[in-house]
């Protein structure tokens, strides 16, 4: 049951990425290229996704607990720290180079484009490396990890 639900959620998410055009790095890069061949489509992806999530979350939170877990598990931190800003900056630079963020890159993996096959293993290695860096508190010497 848990696996089936996870699979369906992933499938809907993947279909959303494909239909919206997020799995096409050229489209993403054109969205980011304000001074060039600007394609504003992805603003509509964010609009649709965030609006549905905003309303849907509030409906979900009316329940005492999630259907398959004993409690809701939400990020508690509200602190704007160095690792948040540094991480988002590094992510943004990578996104601007390749035109892939994690969801579309994974979703596009079965299409087997050479660029995707170079991107995804490097991203997984980066996730491991970044998690190590966080655990070692490299970015927050005062112990301000989130």
């Amino acid at each position: 049951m848990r696996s089936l639900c996870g699979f369906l959620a992933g499938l809907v998410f993947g279909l959303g990425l494909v239909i919206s055009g997020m799995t096409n790095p050229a489209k993403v890069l054109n969205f980011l290229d304000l001074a060039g061949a600007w394609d504003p489509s992805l603003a509509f992806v964010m609009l649709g996704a965030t609006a549905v999530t905003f309303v849907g979350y509030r409906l979900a939170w009316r329940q005492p607990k999630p259907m398959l877990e004993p409690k809701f598990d939400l990020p508690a931190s509200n602190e704007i720290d160095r690792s948040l800003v540094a991480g988002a900056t590094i992510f943004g630079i990578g996104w601007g180079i390749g035109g892939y963020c994690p969801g579309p890159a994974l979703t596009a993996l079965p299409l087997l484009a050479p660029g995707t096959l170079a991107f995804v293993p490097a991203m997984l290695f980066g996730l491991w490396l970044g998690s190590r860096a966080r655990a070692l508190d490299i970015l927050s010497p005062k112990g301000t990890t989130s």
Partner: protein
Amino acid sequence: MGPVTQTDFTPWMSLGGGVLIGISAVMVMALFGRIAGISGIARGVLGMVVPMEGTSDDAGWRIAFVLGLFVAPVAMALIGSPVEQTVSDNLVGMALAGLLVGVGTAIGSGCTSGHGVCGLARLSRRSAVAVMTFMIAAAATVHVLRHMLGVV
């Protein structure tokens, strides 16, 4: 990277795709009580393979979620609308991009889905700062590569 490919403005398809992404995020919250952040889900799956800090033991539904992602483009091809994409063939550049995306989302605790969609919908101040930061960094990177270095 790679020649600039013109892409069509697709407001309705993009809005519709966005709605599906939102529905999925709400499913993950209603079912598992969690944020549907893809970098976090990928870390959870990775934690099964290599020892990693801060990943939960419960990787089962996350693995199924990633399998669902993989099936999406295959399903689209089967119903006769294969996915169109233009991916750079500069493999060194793409590997560098992947490395930065992985490191950045791990350090910054989220990506376009976790901070972008889910975080903004939660009205999280942290996520709002993260989204502004990565949008500006990404747009600046594209600007420098395309219009200043001429690496198009």
